[in-house]
């Protein structure tokens, strides 16, 4: 795993999780957006998965030096990953709760 830099994988994970929330809500709110993902994967959920894998791969393999001169503190940013994952979970859950009752 010589090419896998912790800081870029952390960034890739954060961006992928935020993208998951944005795509999930956008698909529910707009039929044309949902159709784009259907076109990509044959089913909107498959299309979402494909797009997320591409986003993760792009951010993972960005050369670290192009992003920042001094790599960020991995320990601190790993905490950020966990907080973002929790907030993403809650955002998706609350969106569907509101969507169900309205």
């Amino acid at each position, binding site marked *: 795993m010589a090419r896998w830099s912790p800081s870029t*994988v952390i960034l*890739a*994970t954060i961006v992928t999780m935020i993208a998951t929330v944005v795509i999930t809500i956008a698909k529910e709110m707009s039929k044309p957006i949902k159709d784009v993902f259907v076109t990509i994967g044959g089913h909107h*959920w498959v299309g*979402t998965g494909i797009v997320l894998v591409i986003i993760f791969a792009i951010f993972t393999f960005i050369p670290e030096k192009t992003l920042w001169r001094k790599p960020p503190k*991995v320990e601190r940013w*790993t905490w950020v990953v966990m907080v973002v994952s929790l907030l993403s*979970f809650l955002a998706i859950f609350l969106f*569907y709760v509101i969507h169900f009752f309205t």
Partner: protein
Amino acid sequence: MVHPLIGTHAGLGELAILAFLWAFVELLGPTKSRIRRAKIASLLGAVFFVLSWVTGGTYYVTQYGELVKPVIKAGAEAWAHSIVMETKEHVFLMLPFLGVLQNVLLRRMDLNDPKSRRVILILTGWIVLFALSMVAMGYLISGAYRSALEIITTGAVLLLPLGLVVMLGYFLLARGTAKPRKNVHGGI
């Protein structure tokens, strides 16, 4: 019978949880051999997450949408699909990426540093909890499906005797009305 893909998906997900739990335990008191085993367990966990994603996705796309979703939505617990399943299918997508991140950090960070070790340990535990929430949501969805099927079965069981009574009544009534009458000439 329950589709084999649903069991495969759940089984692989549970193996992934066990693998990360194993890694978590190994990381509690890391020695050279324990770290080596934690790396193996974490790699297995990430692979199981990906396999669970593929099998669950295949089931979701080919079976769930057509056969299970309409039953749950017609039942008393429609929220199990509209809230729980919708949340699960999207939140699950984050797990394989978290698994990959944990593997990268485990291999690239200095585990002699207590700060690094602590954060990897917590991330590993976090992945276990995150994945366990998928199990809980899967339980709610399966429960709602069974409950909806029970309503259908109960309905059928209750309607069956009623249907038989109606049919019997109709038959007797039909027999009564079809009773041959004597015609005006006295013959049959």
